[in-house]
């Protein structure tokens, strides 16, 4: 799905001017940076943090939707949802894999997630209360994710860009399956329609917040843009998402829960766009910092899986060592026999 972006990223570097200028020249020439290339420490750190947050978001993001796999109301929906949540695990894995090329291990990143040190997208700290939430997450949350991830396919860091290409290719079905669920509800019984509207009411603002703070408040954005880790500003992506999504809601006969939402000719360089009402940033920061309804449960669930799986990982490791030892023994035995 998607990372919150750059909360707490620190892009400062101490390398000399010539080195930084040469690096910037490579970036400006649209050269990709590859794992063993010389890079400013700030560039590396920013990427480790962003890719890590992104990976954690995918992994924690399995939980709210996973909450409904066992209750999906038809077998077709059950299979699609299981495949989707499985994909998210895959996306987390591709991203951990990309981050590991920067010299950080998955174990380190996992420890940081479980200790609460590493952040992940605030959206996953909201609960999924009805089946309509599953459709709405696919539609809005995956929709917002795609807005963010498509530009990341051109990110300057090669392994991240390649992981994102793979993720985007796979995610093309996620938003469509979500919208199809909501559409079915919106055309269904009164209870189903009400369920769809209720889900939109609860997920709209958190989805809008997924793009992160306003550009003026986004401390580290500028450096990330210069390094082409990030290609568009938070506000630009948010606007793009809103402009795409409001007509989709209208098509369904659902109402976006923003009384201030109105068409504004002056937006998007005079091409017009939907102007949204004020965002509750207090809520955003509260949830990012651990005060959301589900923050504690999400981390507890991840910790439980990790802790309860420890004996399995240890057994696999122990068996691998035994196998290696036996093989070495056989080789040695073979040599002796040959002599």
């Amino acid at each position, binding site marked *: 799905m998607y990372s919150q972006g750059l909360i707490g990223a620190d892009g400062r570097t101490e390398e000399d001017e010539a080195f930084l200028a040469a690096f910037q020249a490579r970036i400006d020439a649209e050269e990709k940076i590859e794992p063993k290339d010389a890079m400013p420490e700030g560039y590396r750190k920013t990427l480790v943090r962003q890719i890590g947050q992104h990976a954690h978001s995918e992994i924690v993001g399995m939980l709210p939707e996973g909450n409904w796999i*066992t209750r999906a109301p038809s077998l077709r929906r059950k299979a699609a949802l299981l495949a989707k949540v499985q994909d998210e695990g895959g996306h987390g894995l591709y991203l951990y894999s990309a981050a590991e090329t920067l010299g950080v291990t998955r174990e380190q990143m996992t420890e940081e997630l479980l200790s609460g040190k590493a952040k992940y997208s605030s959206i996953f700290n909201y609960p999924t209360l009805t089946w309509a939430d599953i459709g709405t997450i696919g539609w809005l949350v995956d929709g917002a994710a795609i807005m963010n991830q498509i530009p990341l396919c051109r990110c300057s860091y090669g392994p991240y860009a390649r992981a994102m290409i793979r993720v985007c290719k796979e995610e093309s079905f996620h938003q469509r399956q979500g919208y199809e669920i909501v559409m079915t509800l919106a055309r269904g019984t009164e209870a189903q329609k009400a369920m769809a509207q209720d889900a939109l009411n609860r997920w709209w603002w958190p989805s809008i917040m997924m793009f992160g703070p306003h550009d003026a408040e986004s401390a580290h954005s500028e450096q990330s843009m210069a390094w082409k880790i990030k290609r568009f500003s938070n506000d630009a992506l948010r606007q793009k998402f809103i402009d795409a999504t409001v007509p989709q809601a209208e098509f369904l006969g659902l109402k976006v829960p923003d009384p201030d939402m109105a068409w504004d000719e002056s937006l998007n360089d005079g091409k017009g766009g939907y102007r949204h009402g004020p965002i509750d940033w207090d809520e955003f920061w509260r949830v990012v910092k651990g005060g959301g309804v589900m923050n504690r449960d999400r981390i507890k669930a991840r910790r439980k899986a990790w802790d309860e799986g420890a004996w399995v990982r240890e057994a696999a490791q122990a068996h691998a060592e035994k196998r290696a030892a036996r093989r070495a023994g056989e080789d040695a035995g073979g040599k002796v026999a040959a002599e």
Partner: protein
Amino acid sequence: MSDAIVTALLELADDHLVLGHRLSEWCGHAPMLEEDLALPSMGLDLIGAARVLYTRAGEIEGKGRGEDDFAYLRDERAYRNCLLVERPNGDFAQTMLRQLYFAAFMEPYWKAALGSSDAVVQGLAAKALKEVAYHIRHSAEWVIRLGDGTAESAARMAEAVVELHGYTDELFLSSEAAQAAEAAGILPGRAALRTAWEAALKPVFAEAQLDWPEKVWPQSGGRKGEHGEALGHMLAEMQVIARAHPGAVW
């Protein structure tokens, strides 16, 4: 006659749906991310097979019932799965052993079903045979690693055998419906598959340093709708939304 065929197809479909559902419960909670991907793959194979079988059962029945009617609107007394597949996941050792027991049975079963007189069953058999071969490979590798891993994993694996082996006998029993389906050439017989099943499992047990249990109390009843207590909870969860909105489309 066609009633018996429908029932026999439902027995098989229920086995697949219930086990697929159990595997889906792991998604997001597996011991490592790689298994968070492996378990749903197997679950999706099983749910896919169940859908084909339910749909076929509905066609033969001819009363307009489809896959979701069978999956979501029958209670536990009407479910016909064997007891093995409904066993709760337990720990990873139990999940893997349950998978191995079932897959090692289904491989010779699907092989025999390649000769089914029903084109749908025959087509499914060809597809499922490949899937189940992989399920055996994956679960057997884990049974070996856990059985011959650490002292803790070996103890858990041995415990899994104690926990589950008694449920395997039911795999080889044919209900009256299944016997009718066998006589009609639609589904294969079960009893004859025991040799192949044991031949597949015993080398895995040996490599896993697990003792093959000589004495077990066989459990059965699933084919008569006499289940353990766990299935009712599973179905209550699975069916809650569909049941709360009768007639709704999802």
